[in-house]
């Protein structure tokens, strides 16, 4: 097993499209690193750069301590699981599994042994003589996985491997992958556009946007301390609410003013000016009492999505802006109802209005200073 490191990697396509810009990123030995981002963020390209299927325009790629920047994929000794599995349709499951070992001219006995072991561990024994066309989606997925495992490569790359599975199978396979990662202790890089998949699977998560790395952190760090407004909005579902406003300072006390909301916020040396206040739906509390004052907002309920154990409430604020809150199932909230939203002070994030960068730099939860009046 080995680490995979990108050092100042640029990737520009001949048509001028920039898929990676000065990207430095490392999947540590034995780590499951998730690359996440919206479509067009360059995450798949980064994976293909690691695999050697694309050449970098600039920068260095290392696997272990070896510089593989100019090596073709077949010399990098990594395995990749493709989104559509890319099973060889003219070969049986057995031949698919054995392909990489055959190419590397491993002895017959070793191939048989490894293929047998992997097939047994993935429950593919009975399918070894079938062709991929005769397998279900889940079975194909397992064959693709087996083909990667059987070679015992230095590292594994996954390109949205679960996106073609139905919801239930996806969750099962996700658990299976997690288990596999622990069992093999292998370095894995996993690409997905699904932030919940990223949060559940990753040891660490790298968020990409337009070829630029936004943040690399553990799932909880990413969730609690997003480095900028983009990460804050991308990670977590439903997405974080943002309110545009101004940060003012009065001695030791700082205050956010925007929409109809005034709330005290922790002070920072750089505080001041135009900001976005970010609040996750979990930190917006819906009350029907007529509370007014700091940390409250008035609005009208637009849509309510009951989720069983909670309800997602979309509230239209007086200025036409919208806020999303997660409320307990009881009391039931109905569309058209006028409600008061209370902002929980422990869930506040501040982002610079222009750069989008996070302003507060301390760990939540914390006790914000009360303004004296």
């Amino acid at each position, binding site marked *: 097993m080995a680490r995979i490191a990108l050092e100042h990697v640029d990737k520009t396509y*001949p048509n001028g499209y920039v898929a990676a810009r000065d990207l430095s990123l490392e999947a540590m030995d034995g780590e499951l690193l998730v690359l996440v981002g919206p479509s067009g963020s360059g995450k798949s390209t980064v994976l293909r750069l690691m*695999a*050697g*299927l694309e050449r970098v325009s600039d920068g260095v790629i290392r696997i272990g301590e070896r510089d593989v920047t100019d090596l*073709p*994929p*077949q010399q*990098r000794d*990594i*395995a*990749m699981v*493709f989104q*559509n599995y*890319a*099973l*060889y*349709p*003219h070969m049986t499951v057995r031949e698919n599994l054995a*392909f*990489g070992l055959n*190419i*590397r001219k491993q002895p017959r006995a070793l191939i048989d042994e490894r293929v047998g072991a992997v097939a047994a561990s993935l429950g593919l024994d009975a399918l070894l003589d*079938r*062709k991929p*066309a*005769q*397998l*279900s989606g889940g079975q194909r997925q397992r064959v693709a996985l087996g*083909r990667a495992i059987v*070679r015992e490569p230095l590292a594994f*790359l996954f390109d949205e491997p679960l996106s073609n599975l139905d919801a239930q199978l996806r969750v099962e396979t996700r658990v299976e992958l997690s288990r596999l990662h622990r069992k093999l202790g292998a370095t894995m890089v996993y690409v997905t556009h699904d932030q919940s998949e990223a949060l559940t699977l990753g040891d660490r998560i790298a968020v990409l946007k337009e070829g630029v790395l936004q943040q690399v952190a553990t799932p909880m760090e990413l969730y609690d301390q997003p480095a900028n407004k983009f990460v804050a909005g991308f990670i977590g579902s439903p997405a974080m609410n943002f309110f545009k406003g101004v940060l003012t300072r009065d001695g030791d006390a700082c205050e956010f003013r925007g929409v109809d909301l005034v709330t005290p916020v922790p002070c920072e040396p750089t505080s001041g000016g135009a900001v976005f206040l970010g609040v996750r739906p979990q930190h917006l509390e819906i009350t029907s009492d007529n509370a007014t004052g700091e940390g409250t907002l008035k609005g009208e309920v637009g849509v309510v999505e009951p989720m069983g154990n909670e309800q997602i409430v979309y509230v239209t604020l007086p200025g036409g802006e919208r806020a999303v809150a997660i409320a307990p199932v009881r009391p039931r909230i109905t569309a058209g109802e006028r409600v008061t939203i209370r902002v929980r002070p422990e869930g506040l994030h501040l982002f610079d209005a222009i750069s989008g960068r996070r302003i507060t730099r301390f760990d939540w939860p914390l006790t914000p200073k009360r303004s004296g009046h």
Partner: protein
Amino acid sequence: MESGASRVAQRGQFRAGKWIFAGALVVLMLFTLFPFYWAIVASLTPDAALFRNPSLWPHQIIGDHYRALFGDRDFITPIRNSLIVAGTTTIFCLAVGTLAAYALARLDFKGKAPIMAFILAVTMFPQISIVSPLYLLLRSLHLIDTYPGLIMPYMTFAMPLTVWVLTGSIRQIPRDLEEAAHVDGATRRQSFTKILLPLAVPSLATTGILTFIYCWNEFLFALSFTLGPERQTVPVAIALFRGQYQVPWGEILAAAVVATAPVAAMVLFFQRRIVQGLTAGAVKG
């Protein structure tokens, strides 16, 4: 009740549609197969009967025409010539065409579109317009009345078809498969021979058959670039059967039957592979 009735009506419609389809198929088959049937019957009918009162049903079957074909006429030589010329052309076309198609479908290089257009442009010249220049060219190369003298012109005409069809079918094979093979450790050549080529077999067979049939049937070049029976191909040999005063229809039709047989056999043989190839990916378990 109502839905049950409509279902019965639907089924009736379905059955009627099937009969109409079958009927149309029979008519079409009669239309296309009758000439072959007539050729076979006529080739077995004595000349006398053939010229006086030809009948659709052979009253008297004789093998004279076939005996003459392989005795006096030496029809073996043109068949051998045709097999050599058509076979070699097909093999070369597939070998060169597959590599060209792979490059056009998979590699990134400048001028791909102009090359494709140029390849297609070659087919636009009517054969008759290039017979004379080709003749002069082949004569100066001392290739008149030789196998290469036929194979090379045939290749120029068959290659564009090969390249276009194969480029299209290679483009339809997902790139992921070759990339997976690369990551698995295959070199570019291995991914070509072990992954791409096996998957391209159905289209290789199709283009191979088309090329072979084209060469097998080709008449103008074969007539122009050969001098005597030594290098004449089947169509030319058959055309030269007719003497000054008579047309030996029995022998001509016997030759036509003999000439059709290998092509028909080949198509039937490869057809199974083509269908196999086409359905392999479609069957979902």
